[in-house]
């Protein structure tokens, strides 16, 4: 249980026990509360006053399945507010096994200097000059770092987009096969890492310094029961392994909520060509992997390996949000082009959602034709080349909108929405508008609650009950992101007995009682810290609104608009 602090100004590393205020916190709770306490809200996100915090979930590194989730936090250069970006792979489990509760990167290296932070098997850290790796894309970088340090390391790094400090830059991290294909995509945290002069964090695998469990037997019993639930559930036990998150393409398109051609329509006429079913059949026929383990300790295997016609690796993992952003959103029905764009974003270090939506805004402004996948590939390559247009694109959709003086830009607090149009799923309007993260789907995914056909109880075209549903889900998700349970393994906590198992494990680790009230308190404390930071950064209730296109342009074919009023939006955080 230690905080590892890296002062990039002087290249000094210090270690201290976890301070009392942060004991029993992990993941998003730790990053958001620490940033709210220590980062000046009015400061420059790319200045030395910002801090970049890496924190495994509270349950990462324990015997519980599907808990290799890393929260990365900072003030965001994309939104100007607080940010927690969550990523899988192996690094969270590895940091936890070295006893690292948080890695805090402060200051900034002198201009032009570039470093790698290496944490060895004893948990000792050192900064190494990385001048020779400057400008490398992530796949090439990871290969060189594995040659230099050996294969048994998790590598978390930035590509050219992060080095250019672009606002849609991601932080990439390696998966179970050592490929840098897992992205902390949202919020431009790759730019913050670039501003510090930090190219990569290399973490030794197989550490034996995991936090002790106060009640090991009790923990293991609850963890076993949890894993059984996840396996037995059809969604996490069968659907996700077979199709991955791409299973959502057809049903979300069917309900008219698949934003198409920069959200000019809610249905893409060629959705079947890019559906999860088509993707899985294509991968199988070419000899790729439809079921693939991407993260340490995963039993769901929702990942895949997409291959080309000759069976050669293209990318891992092709997912719903990327298929939307690089597919329907830009009118592109070429699955191979989507897979290429996914790889390019991982390799250059870009968020696929923000980048796809930025391309969509450029196409909507007439810069290129909708549907031209190869034009999209060329545009994304410009980011790596560092051209003027590449920098405009790499700064995200709002930047592209400003450049073309185009006002159809689907962003909230500067960050693009995701693959659910809020006009036909009103609950997502509340989450997009009010989340302290900006346009974000994981912060409060209420799609299932909005679709009666999927067991939901809300009318997806009505405002009734939407604020409450979004509020409750945002509180719950803030807690989930703090303990570090994978979003898709939430099938294990969907029942009353399932969530009790989570409380039991938290109590069995900390040695303190933990129950349902504590869970809500945890989620609330996170949202309150994030909201407080954003208020000090200058956000007001006017920032908790959607762009006017969602209120004024009916979405074909159902021709709905967002009906949640400003007064209702403002009730979301009445707590």
């Amino acid at each position, binding site marked *: 249980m230690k905080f590892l602090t890296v002062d990039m100004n002087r290249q000094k590393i210090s270690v201290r026990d976890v301070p009392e205020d942060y004991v029993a916190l992990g993941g998003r709770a730790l990053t958001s509360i620490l940033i709210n306490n220590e980062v000046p809200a009015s400061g420059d996100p790319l200045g030395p006053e910002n801090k970049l915090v890496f924190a495994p979930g509270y349950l990462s590194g324990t015997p519980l399945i599907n808990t290799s989730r890393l929260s990365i936090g900072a003030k965001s250069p994309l939104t100007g507010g607080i940010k927690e970006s969550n990523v899988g792979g192996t690094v969270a489990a590895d940091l936890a096994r070295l006893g690292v509760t948080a890695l805090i990167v402060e200051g900034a290296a002198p201009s032009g200097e570039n470093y790698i932070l290496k944490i060895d098997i004893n948990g000792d850290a050192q900064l190494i000059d990385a001048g020779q790796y400057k400008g490398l894309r992530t796949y090439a970088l990871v290969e060189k770092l594995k040659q230099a340090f050996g294969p048994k390391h998790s590598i978390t790094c930035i590509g050219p987009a992060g080095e250019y400090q672009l606002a849609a830059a991601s932080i990439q991290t390696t998966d179970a096969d050592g490929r840098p294909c897992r992205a902390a995509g949202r919020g431009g945290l790759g730019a913050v890492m670039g501003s510090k002069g930090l190219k990569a964090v290399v973490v030794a695998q197989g550490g034996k310094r995991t936090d002790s469990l106060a009640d090991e037997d009790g923990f293991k019993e609850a963890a076993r029961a949890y894993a059984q639930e996840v396996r037995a559930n*059809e*969604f*996490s036990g*069968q*659907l*996700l392994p*077979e*199709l991955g*998150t791409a*299973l*959502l393409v*057809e*049903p979300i398109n*069917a*309900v008219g909520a698949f934003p198409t051609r920069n959200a000019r329509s809610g*249905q893409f006429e060629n959705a*079947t060509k890019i*559906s*999860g*079913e*088509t993707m899985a*059949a294509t991968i199988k026929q070419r000899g790729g992997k439809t079921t693939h383990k991407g993260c340490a300790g995963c039993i769901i295997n929702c990942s895949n390996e997409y291959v080309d016609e000759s069976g050669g690796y293209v990318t891992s993992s092709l997912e719903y949000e990327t298929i939307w952003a690089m597919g329907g959103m830009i009118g592109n029905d070429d699955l191979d082009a989507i897979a290429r764009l996914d790889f390019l974003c991982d390799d250059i270090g870009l968020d696929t959602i923000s980048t796809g939506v930025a391309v969509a805004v450029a196409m909507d402004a007439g810069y290129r034709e909708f549907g031209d996948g190869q034009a999209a590939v060329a545009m994304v390559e410009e980011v790596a080349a560092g051209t003027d247009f590449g920098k405009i694109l790499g700064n995200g959709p709002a930047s592209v909108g400003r450049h073309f003086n185009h006002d159809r830009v689907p962003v909230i607090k500067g960050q693009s929405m995701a693959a659910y149009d809020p006009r036909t799923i009103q609950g997502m309007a509340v989450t997009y508008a009010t989340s302290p993260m900006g346009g974000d*789907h*994981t912060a409060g*995914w209420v*799609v*299932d609650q909005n*679709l009666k*056909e*999927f*067991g939901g109880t809300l009318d997806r075209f009505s405002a009734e009950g939407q604020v409450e549903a979004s509020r409750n889900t945002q509180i719950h998700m803030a807690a989930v992101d703090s303990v570090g349970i994978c*979003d*898709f393994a*939430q*099938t294990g906590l*969907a029942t009353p007995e399932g969530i009790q198992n989570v409380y039991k494990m938290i109590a069995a680790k900390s040695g303190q009682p933990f129950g349902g009230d504590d869970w809500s308190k945890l989620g609330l404390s996170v949202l309150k810290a994030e909201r407080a930071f954003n208020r000090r950064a200058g956000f007001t209730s006017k920032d908790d609104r959607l762009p006017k296109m969602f209120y004024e342009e009916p979405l074909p*074919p159902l021709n709905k608009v967002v009906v949640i009023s400003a007064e209702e939006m403002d009730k979301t955080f009445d707590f």
Partner: protein
Amino acid sequence: MKIQVILFGTLRNGFPDHDPVHGLEVELADGSSVADLVDHLEIPRTRLGVVSVGGVLVKADTRLKDRDRVRVFQPIAGG
């Protein structure tokens, strides 16, 4: 009457003849509803999400017509 049915997700696993593009052809009595079709396919209600005909969402009691193209989805969860 003949109905063309396309099943999504793992619903199609029980139907080896299911074609990825054209799905299955099912013979039903005239006047059958969506619920009748689902019963005919022996899909439990707990595994049933949205059903659409010709791209429009329909309810369980919607009457089907000869040559309708029906798409049957599973419930979804997660983000």
